[in-house]
């Protein structure tokens, strides 16, 4: 460690003689010390904490789903697509010069692109015939809701689904990798060859295949509701993609840890195999997994966005406005606007691109910064 870089304090070293605090707490203190020295990771941590706070706020806020700023085109209860939910304003239009029938009606523009619905007459930033902050949900272009509301409601869902997906893959990989590394021999060979096979399949394609094949045959797994089933399917698909990386990572780590003196000592003092694996090997080989997980968590919304962009709309956005889904849907819309721009009707809903994109970007970059700091803090060999 270079002198002068550390600001005042020094890393908490091994416990002094006399009082002996819990070594785990000591270790956490040390980790926190090294994390604190990395400004970027503190920024990342701050952004993540902000998102968590936002998620808690969004969950505790008594916002029923149907109070999302949605618009609908047909009468309430008619059963038609885009029919209004209770409390929704029905979209209505009126021509310029006449009086609006009721509040929430929009003047018909002289001409608007086919994908643009009847909209606000005067929008704050003169954005053409689009309400600022709106997002078209359906390809038919009839259902709208505020992007800000969607982003707010999507925080908790985004955080949960990314942790669940990465956690699933990591746990499967940890389990198989530990077995493979510890037992060696035929077990190791078999698992590693399977890992090789899985690693040579393109990731996104594999998720697509799993989802499309399993999704066409089953509408419900474990008796879950369709949306929950889709979430479970997504988790399973990504698990199938991610476990080989974790298995390989853990195996390498276990192979190193297995030969350490303390494992030998544990074996010599008569500890059972299960105890050695659970108490000595796994805790000592799990840090790289944490680091890899924290890196992967940031990419989940990006991958979901890619899936949605390719046409796999997994979640009904109105109820689960996951950020990747929001971003992908917005981008899908932009293409149509840009095409319309060629024939002279140039209204670009830039906020559709910028805000979901910004949310995704902040999330991914915060997670990456934090992971970078964690790597420095947890892996002594990489400490600067």
């Amino acid at each position, binding site marked *: 460690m270079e002198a002068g870089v550390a600001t005042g304090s020094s890393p908490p070293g091994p416990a002094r003689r006399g009082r002996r605090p819990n070594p785990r707490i000591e270790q956490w203190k040390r980790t926190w010390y090294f994390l604190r020295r990395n400004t*970027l990771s503190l920024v990342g941590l701050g952004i993540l904490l902000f998102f968590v706070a936002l998620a808690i706020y969004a969950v505790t806020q008594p916002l029923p789903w149907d109070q999302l700023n949605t618009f609908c085109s047909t009468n309430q209860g008619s059963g038609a697509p885009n029919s209004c939910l209770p409390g929704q304003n029905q979209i209505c239009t009126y021509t310029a010069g006449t009086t609006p029938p009721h509040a929430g009606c929009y003047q018909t523009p002289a001409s608007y692109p086919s994908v643009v619905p009847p909209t606000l007459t005067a929008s704050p930033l003169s954005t053409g015939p689009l309400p600022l902050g709106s997002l078209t949900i359906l*390809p038919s272009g009839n259902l709208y809701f505020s992007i800000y509301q969607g982003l707010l409601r999507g925080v908790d869902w985004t955080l949960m689904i990314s942790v669940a997906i990465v956690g699933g893959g990591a746990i499967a990989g940890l389990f198989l990798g530990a077995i493979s590394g510890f037992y060696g021999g035929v077990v190791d060979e078999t698992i590693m*060859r*399977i890992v*090789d*096979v*899985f690693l*040579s*399949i*393109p990731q*996104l*394609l*594999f998720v*697509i*295949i*799993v989802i*499309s*094949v*399993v999704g*066409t*045959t089953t509408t419900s797994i474990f008796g879950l509701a369709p949306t929950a089933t889709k979430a479970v399917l997504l988790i399973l698909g990504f698990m199938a993609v991610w476990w080989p990386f974790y298995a390989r990572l853990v195996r390498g780590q276990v192979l190193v840890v297995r030969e350490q003196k303390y494992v030998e000592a544990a074996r010599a003092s008569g500890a059972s195999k299960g105890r050695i694996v659970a108490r000595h090997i796994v805790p000592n080989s799990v840090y790289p997994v944490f680091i890899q997980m924290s890196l992967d968590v*940031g990419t989940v919304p*990006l991958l979901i*966005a*890619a899936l949605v*962009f*390719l*046409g*796999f709309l997994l979640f009904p956005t109105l109820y689960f406005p996951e950020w*990747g889904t929001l*971003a*992908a849907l917005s*981008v899908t819309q*932009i*293409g149509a606007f*840009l*095409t319309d*721009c*060629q*024939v*002279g*009707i*140039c209204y*670009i809903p*830039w906020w559709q*691109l*910028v805000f979901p*994109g910004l949310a*995704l*970007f902040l*999330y*991914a*970059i915060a997670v*990456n*910064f934090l992971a*970078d700091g964690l790597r420095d803090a947890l892996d002594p060999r990489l400490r*600067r």
Partner: protein
Amino acid sequence: MWLYIVRRLILLVPIIIGVMTITFVLVSALPISNRLTAVYGDPSPRATWVYNPTLNPGQGPCPGLPNTHTCSNPVYQRDIHALGLDQPVPVQWGIYIFNSLTFQWGTVSNHSSAAILISSIHGLPVITVLSWYLPYTIELAVLSLLIILVISIPLGNLSAVNRNRPVDQAARIMSFSGFALPGFLLASLVLTAFVIGVGSNTGYHVYSPWCPSGATLYGEFTGSWPVSSCFGGIGGATSYPSWIHNNGIYSTPTGFPTVDALIAGQYWLALDTIIRMILPALVIAFGTIAILLRFVRNSMLEVMNLDFVRTARSEGIPERTVIKRHAGRNSLNVTITVMGLLFAFFIGGFPIIEEVFNLNGVGLMLAYSVQNSSGPIDFSLVFGTTLLFTFIVVFANIIVDVLYAYLDPRVRLG
């Protein structure tokens, strides 16, 4: 070395068979009716017949179906037999593996989104269609790799030399942001910025030598070829050489669009093709610079601590030369390895970038084939693409390993 290559090639067979087994298991999980629909489209001719003793005398009710149904629909039987679905599962698996290894990857089904969007690939063998679309993706991959190489090697060396200084931090933040910004978003932002920034509400036109009548900016920056509405180009009224189909499918002589245009002597077309590739390539590069930058930086840091670098410094060689000649060259091994893997990964397609920019590459083919909004997924095309990518990734691994040993004589293959 040849022994090593042969051994790796032999070891490759079980991996490819493993991948195909996984896809086979996935396909087998589908009900037979779904699989028939995926190949033949409209399910109604194969629907189980209603059992009617007067219409179909002598046929009993179908086992496993309600009494009113019979299972002897000849269309159903014929289709099942044609696909070999009446065989036992191990035999089906054998046929599947054999056909995959002999490049009989089935045909593009007429109802698939890809065939609807690109009408000229109706019913053609998957391998033919892929071979049409692969060259464009390879050209795009090469261009992106060049951009990545030009940016990330100097930047990586710079940030390794100025470790933990502002330059290093800035490079890290830049590369992280490339990683954190989804490609499709960046692509759309770039396109939108171009259209808004340069274009206007009335439709700004670009007048180029190859399109004197003017193309819209959006049309100029998307698509692999000049828009079909561009008349009066140098090539004549249609402005297309005879070997370009309207759908951008081209077959002769090499398949690589730029090379073909050069061979045909239409330099403006080659230039236009490259210009259209620059924007997507920049977007791809921005997303992947992060990966290479990190490798270059780390391997440079490693090499700079080695003894021979210290010796070079102690001999009084200028620092610039030490970094360039001694450290830089020795840190390239890792870089080249990563480049090889990136190239394989790139050919694995940029379905999203190619869809945003509407480029005729394998990625677009893949993106179209999995779009299930307009019908069932075309499994032949999807699995064909999977197989192709697997082949490419696996071969790239071997090539990279051999190249690594060639570049670093200390590495022994075995």
